[in-house]
């Protein structure tokens, strides 16, 4: 796999205990990669390093084989969509979109107008040139920001929490449209999110970040089924983390930690005995909070009519992911 966008040992230190990296990551041409991590995991810093707003302390970045590590943002050819869009309030939609086309060199006015019209049509905002950005809805502003980033024909597209400012009802549809659009343009894309669902829907691959380090890179299935660390297992998807006697009850050995997804636990005639303490109905299924006799709690996803609160149940695991007990950190 040839990396179109490559990060090699990229490191940025803020204080002695706050650092990002070293991060090494290769992204193929036309691929969409999600940077997924909790807040403070360094994903935005990584994005800003790529855009050139921060200078790394060590390591390098290459785009299409060119080392861009010390290239200033203005000459990096990275299109960026900011979290709050950062549309210029003193310019109208057309002028916002034209900004980068003009900044990149001198072109005729006609060519600029044609390009603006083309990208606005691409984001389904044809004819919006003379609108004021303040008059647009959140979703429209997001698309103008995308059009503005794409207009100078960048080599890489960077998106910072692209959907966090939209209301939840709009998010899912926008996610699909965004993916379709990026794939149509065919641009290599990296985006930052803290929502697993967004990363799964939008990314070809997902890089999970924790404390400034990439824990695992893989497809959604890989992360879910074969998490490389306990952190990935618990951060991606719902998970019961079982230790000690409870782990042994589901087939673990001493010194092992078991991670069992709620849907991989089921009520059976025999198995670990426990009592249903809470039931949370979600429609197609229900989450049952089960308490073992030793007082440990875990979650089971089952049929909505499988058990009642207070009922005595037996639980068995279909499949468990095994980790050895981590030494220092979890």
């Amino acid at each position, binding site marked *: 796999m040839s990396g179109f966008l490559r990060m090699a040992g990229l490191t940025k230190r803020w204080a002695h205990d706050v650092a990002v990296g070293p991060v090494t990551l290769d992204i193929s041409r036309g691929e969409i990669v999600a940077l997924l991590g909790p807040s403070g995991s360094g994903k935005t810093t990584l994005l800003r390093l790529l855009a050139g707003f921060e200078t790394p302390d060590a390591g390098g970045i290459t785009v299409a084989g060119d080392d861009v590590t010390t290239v200033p943002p203005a000459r990096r050819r990275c299109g960026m969509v900011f979290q709050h869009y950062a549309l*210029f309030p003193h310019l109208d939609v057309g002028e916002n979109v034209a900004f980068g086309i003009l900044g990149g060199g001198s072109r005729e006015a006609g060519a600029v107008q044609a390009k603006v019209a083309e990208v606005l049509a691409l984001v389904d905002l044809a004819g919006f040139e003379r609108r004021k950005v303040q008059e647009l809805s959140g979703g429209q502003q997001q698309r103008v920001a995308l059009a503005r980033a794409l207009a100078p024909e960048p080599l890489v597209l960077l998106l910072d929490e692209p959907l966090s400012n939209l209301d939840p009802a709009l998010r899912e549809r926008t996610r699909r449209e965004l993916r379709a659009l990026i794939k149509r343009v065919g641009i290599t894309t990296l985006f930052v999110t803290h929502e697993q669902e967004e990363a799964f829907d939008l990314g070809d691959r997902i890089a999970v970040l924790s404390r400034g380090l990439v824990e695992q890179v893989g497809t959604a299935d890989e992360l879910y089924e074969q998490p490389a660390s306990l952190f990935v297992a618990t951060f991606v998807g719902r998970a019961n983390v079982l230790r000690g006697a409870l782990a042994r009850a589901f087939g673990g050995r001493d010194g092992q930690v078991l991670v069992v997804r709620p849907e991989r636990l089921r009520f059976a005639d025999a198995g670990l005995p426990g009592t249903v303490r809470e039931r949370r109905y979600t429609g197609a299924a229900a989450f049952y909070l089960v308490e073992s006799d030793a007082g440990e709690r875990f979650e089971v996803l089952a049929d909505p009519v499988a058990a009642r609160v207070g009922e005595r149940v037996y639980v068995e695991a279909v499949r468990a992911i095994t980790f050895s007990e981590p030494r220092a950190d979890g």
Partner: protein
Amino acid sequence: MNGRRGQVFGLALALLLAWLVVYPILIVAGDAAHADALRAFVSRPGEWAALWASLWISLASVALAALIGVPLAFLFEWFEFPGRKALGALIALPAVLPPFVGVIAFLFLYGESGFVARALQHALGLARAPWRLQGAGAILLVHAYSMYVYFYLLTRAGLARLDQSMLEAAQALRAGRGRIFRRVVLPLLRPALAGAALLTFMTALGSFSAPYVFGGGFRLMTTQIYSTKVNGDLALAMVETLALALVAVVGLVLLRHTQGEDLLVALGKGTAPRRRPIERPAVRALATAAGWLFAVLLLLPHLTLLLVSLVPYATWTTETLPPVLSLVNYRRVFSEPERLRPLLNSFWMASVSTAAAVVVALAAGWLVVRRRVAVRRWIESFLELPWALPGTVFAVALATAFGVSKPLALRWVLVGTVVLLPLAYVVRSLPVAGRAILGGYRQLDPVLEEAAASLGAGRWVTLRRVTLPLLGPALAAGASLAFVGALGDFVSSVVLYTYDTRPIAIEIMSSLRLNELGVAAVFGVLLMVCSAAVLSIGARR
């Protein structure tokens, strides 16, 4: 790498400002440390009298300005009556009269040969003018006229931010009208009132034009410094300058202390109380009449200037109103190169000094707000310092610092050159330009500049196409205030001007000395019109 360069620039700017605004004051302090001069200052009753006069005149100005400005603010913010809007616009009129022009307008209007005195003299058949416009009373009259605006504007702004529901809550708690006023409205207005008091106090303490023209034998510290310096007793002038600076600093610290924190900011914004129409017809008529009468009083100085500017030389002797009116004075000002010169001088010096102050303020905004350089506190303090010290103090300090050639001590002879007066204007402009532009920078989202960079715009393109357009209103406000201040300046000019740099205010003074009242008034009218035009451009959004 980039970070270190920002720090170096920050340090360079801080040093430049220190050299410009702190160093001259330190030199004055050093020169004042002469035993003889100190002894002279302490032993002469005149010095203490001047210092005391400065202090009590300033406090009385605060009281008078509050007495006029605060009730007006309540009237215009809380009540609805015919003509409220039109009057509200007129009420800021004193702001377009530069201090010295306001003073001569008062001279033409209320002076012993002014319109009012003449009218009374004629009406009552008196042998001479019924009064002389001189001494503390005259000074306080001018101060009250020009400074009530601070109380009026700041109190109105404070009232507009009051929350209607807060007053309703007090009513629901069964508080009477007086109690609500004392316990709710006044405490919440405290920061606005204290701010206005501070502004008035500092302005009155630094006031030079009114005591210079109307003081006569009654000396304030500002005029005392000037006459000591003109008489050649430099060491004593340094001591006086330092004494006035100390009073200013102590006043500033004490008044800042009373300001308290702004509670309304903490609580967030509600809806301002709605204006109540005045119901009783008699009261409404009274309020309206009082409002118009007040507006006429405000407008009289402007009209006086205009009228006097139309009076040809030596045509107006004993009549109540001038018998001949013509444009001959205007023609003379614009046709005689020697008379046009001060106009051009003021314009180029105000333009250059405003540009310089704006550039310094922009650099300060970038370094303080964007780069957050280590010395940002220093930069901000240095920008504010010229506001805290009276104009006379700075003028004398600059004349002292740049009156000798000591290149190793970073002192060059600038006295007598065309550089010094514009430099003084720059110093005087730094606080207004700095405040406006730093405020603008603080409201500017840094992400917008990053967005421009990610779209391929370099530093200068970003500055030209994103930062400056977005700073536009703040820039215009700061620049227009700086320009108007420099254009009408008298305080610094009277200490530092040379024949080649004589500005409008100085020309007005010499025209008055030659008894060419008409020409003096023409300059006053031109200053007034230019100030109004520039301020209205600056206030446009």
